[in-house]
């Protein structure tokens, strides 16, 4: 069994193991979950280091004679005469996402340490969910990819619906149905690609090399881009995200906003890879939509006073930046988009973890009902501050690296229309500063608004673990971004080659 399969199967096996533990032994259940996610975290760190060792840290394209950046292949025939394979392999982008997933789920399990209500089922569903997420990033067969993609749907509905807060039934249903609506488009896309390519294989590279007819790409590209874009928070199909993230329990918000929305961006990247001609036709159109995304998300976030809604709308804005970078079809912006997926994942996970912990203490999520909290919970407060700075793109933190690359890449496009959109998108950094700093000031500084808050305690040890990990990674990746950029650059080469191989408009 290969390493990638091990990473995917570990959470699944842990979920099965938890099924056999009596429900009242919650501590044992949590330990099993923590152990499983810990193993995947160590494995993915190992894989990233190993991959870096293979490709070296010096900049440079793929070595001669290599069309793909894939490593750790596991390829066996699986289902049916259609040529569906069990094909796992990873490139730098996949590994970065696997690392992100492993970090976020490990932190998510820590952040759910005080989950007592139906804990057994909670952790079973959480681990099932993460199995699907890992799978998507390492699957290289379209069918397998889509299977893992959909696998995430099943536990998500129940996780939000049972353990959520507020209008949880409504939010869970809305989220599930909208994402499934996106999937409905993706299935059509996959089948059309398969039969138009006619190569008797579902593997990404085989279909990409088969060259889909331009007339098909023309209509199929937006279908698939909207399909994946729905999960990536693409305006106007982002509306599931604020409700869903606000209602979800802490760990699920972390995982969903931090990692699942990246599945959308990852899928969009694959769509561009498979249909470069369609991408060239539709790129500008999607740049317009994603500019709206970035700006609209930030503007709504200014209006909101509920911390979870602020974070959710800022996610819409920041994930818009990922899609924006992809829609430019520019190599530098692509790198920025990939790094943004990673950086935003860490940042949002941190935010949602903090919101959950603060809500657990103050019993309110409205910033109007908080104030002066830095005096009573300094640790959580400072963590929030650093996260906020990363959100508004302060140099030295991971968010900056991503944003600067996306904007530089986008601005290098020739036409004025593109440049105006880039300027507009870049201006959203200011709006981000408005809502982030406003929330921080209101919450943390000034006199203590609510007397009851004077007795609350700061983060416990179990709560500090995920916060420290996430903060460390944000700062580390911000100060030493070379390895991420290298992995992204190396693995983006096939996509760029694909785009270069087709004539411009």
């Amino acid at each position, binding site marked *: 069994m290969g390493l990638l399969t091990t990473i995917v199967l570990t959470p699944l096996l842990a979920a099965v193991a938890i099924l056999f533990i009596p429900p009242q032994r919650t501590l044992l259940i949590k330990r099993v979950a923590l152990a499983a996610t810990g193993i995947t975290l160590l494995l993915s760190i190992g894989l990233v280091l190993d991959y870096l060792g293979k490709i070296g840290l010096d900049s440079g394209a793929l070595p001669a004679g290599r069309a793909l950046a894939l490593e750790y292949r596991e390829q066996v025939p699986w289902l049916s005469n259609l040529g569906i394979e069990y094909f796992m392999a990873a490139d730098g982008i996949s590994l970065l996402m696997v690392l992100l997933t492993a970090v976020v789920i490990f932190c998510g399990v820590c952040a759910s340490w005080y989950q007592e209500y139906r804990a057994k089922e909670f952790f079973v569903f959480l681990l099932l969910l993460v199995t699907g997420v890992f799978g998507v990033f390492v699957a290289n067969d379209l069918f397998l990819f889509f299977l893992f993609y*959909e696998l995430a749907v099943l536990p998500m509905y129940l996780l939000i619906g049972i353990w959520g807060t507020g209008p949880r039934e409504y939010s869970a249903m809305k989220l599930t149905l909208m994402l499934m*609506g996106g999937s409905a488009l993706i299935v059509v896309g996959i089948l059309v690609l398969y*039969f138009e390519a006619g190569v008797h294989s579902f593997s990404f590279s085989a279909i990409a090399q088969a060259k889909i007819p331009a007339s098909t790409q023309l209509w199929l590209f937006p279908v698939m881009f909207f399909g994946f874009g729905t999960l990536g928070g693409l305006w106007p199909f982002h509306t599931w995200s604020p409700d869903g993230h606000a209602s979800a329990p802490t760990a699920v918000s972390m995982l969903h906003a931090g990692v699942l929305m990246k599945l959308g961006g990852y899928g969009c990247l694959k769509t561009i890879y498979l249909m470069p001609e369609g991408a060239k036709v539709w790129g500008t159109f999607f740049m317009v939509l994603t500019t709206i995304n970035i700006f609209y998300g930030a503007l709504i976030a200014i209006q909101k006073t509920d911390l979870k809604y602020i974070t959710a709308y800022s996610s819409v804005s920041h994930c818009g930046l990922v899609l924006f970078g992809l829609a430019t079809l520019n190599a530098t912006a692509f790198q920025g988009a990939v790094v943004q997926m990673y950086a935003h994942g860490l940042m949002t996970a941190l935010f949602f973890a903090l919101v959950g912990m603060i809500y657990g203490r103050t019993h309110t999520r409205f910033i109007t009902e908080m104030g002066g909290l830095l005096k009573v919970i300094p640790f959580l407060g400072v963590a929030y501050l650093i996260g906020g700075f990363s959100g508004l793109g302060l140099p030295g933190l991971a968010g900056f690296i991503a944003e600067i690359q996306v904007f530089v890449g986008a601005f290098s496009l020739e036409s004025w229309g593109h440049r105006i959109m880039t300027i507009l998108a870049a201006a959203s950094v200011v709006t981000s500063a408005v809502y982030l700093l406003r929330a921080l000031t209101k919450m943390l500084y000034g006199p203590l608004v609510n007397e009851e808050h004077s007795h609350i305690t700061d983060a416990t040890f179990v709560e500090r673990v995920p916060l420290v990990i996430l903060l460390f990674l944000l700062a580390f990746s911000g100060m030493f971004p070379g390895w991420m950029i290298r992995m992204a650059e190396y693995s983006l080469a096939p996509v760029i080659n694909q785009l270069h191989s087709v004539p411009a408009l």
Partner: protein
Amino acid sequence: MLEQTLAISNELLLVALAIVVACLGLLPGRKPDGRLEVTVATSGLLLLLVFNAINGFPAISAFGGAYKAGPVAQVFKCLFLLSGALTALLSWPANTPRPALPGKLIGEHLSLLLLSITGMCFLVSAQELVLLYVSLELVTIPLILLVAFNRHELRSAEAGMKYVLFSALSSGLLLYGLSIVYGLAGTTDLTAIAPHLHFSLPAIMALTLIMAGVGFKISAVPFHLWAPDTYEGAPTPVAAFLSVASKAAGFALFYKLVSALFGHLADTTVLLLGLLATVTMTAGNLMAIHQTNMKRFLAYSSIAQAGYLLIGLSNDGELGLAAVSFYLLVYVVSNLAAFGVVTFIAAATGKEDMRDYVGFSVNNPALAAVMMLAMFSLAGIPPLAGFLGKFYLFAAAAQKGYYWLVLVGTVNATISLYYYLVVLKHMYLKKPENGQTPIGRMNISWAGTIALAISCAAMLVVGILPHFLRWTESAAAIGW
């Protein structure tokens, strides 16, 4: 003569089993409580199933070519035997306030069930119009009796009456269509008819009449009206059987009559099929949304499922046949699991309304999990078998370039997810409101446990392990 008899040994054994089960009640000194009957019928069916499944693919032709037991026919026979065995297990006499069937009549119930399965097995092997029609009647008449089995109950009697009227009408339409076909072709041999059917008014009329007649059997919209009332009134195990085996037989019939006879008129057939599929899925889904009675809900859901299967029929090649038979396998186990849970809850508490299921998962986690798997499988969510099944059906349509049909299918699958989730919402999400007591812990008979275990195992492995898909694929590659 011996050779001919051996050729239909499967069907003869079924008839023998039916007679044995019917006579078990006559054994002296035994209180006919149904336990022995269920045990004998189930083990008989399972033995036949195993025998059929491991027998390889036969190529037996008998009675001057009127009867042919080919690979696809064998796959369908396995489906019927499996549904029969699971239904028999669900008929286990419940020691509860409201059993689905009166214990002393279970023998009769099972022998009628076996006779209907015999008819289905003949149906898929029939290569000739008359045998086809007669076996269809053998399928239907025991089913009418089964639907009206609790004849003292108003609902059951009403359901029986509706079923008998609609069956008669559909048989009439079908027969009318078949007689036109005979008039055009001058032969009743299914393999010899197709070349005689050209694009002409009588041929299109025959096609429409046959589609309408078969449409009743598979409960395609607008011929579905009998299904909800019949399912609601029939004893729950019978409704379960109707929804799976009878539907599978309907699809076999569809293949034999529409695809085989009119396949070369692809444009017309596919247009009609596509319309039928679209209307069936959409109407079934939209009507299912508002149902709160579980049996009516499953009836509308099964109407929508027939619509997905019709998508697969748009491909008259190997892939279409493999996809339809594979999806039927998936559908049989998923739907029977759902009906199984409904049966047990109804037998224990008399409750059939999903609003009474609130909080069910707290006291009965295992049964709720079975329902969850069944709902997700019917909705086509991985890793359950329904996912691969639906993907394969859509692939069949895509292979022929009917991308619009695929899109209609996937959009409908999304709509259907809504109402499948509503069931889970009641079982898992909602908390009992004041004055409402959730259903307490229930004990399930060992027979019921086996039935649900088989269904769940099948839902989990059929979509992951390649063997089942290969089986239907290689059968489809050879043909009926």
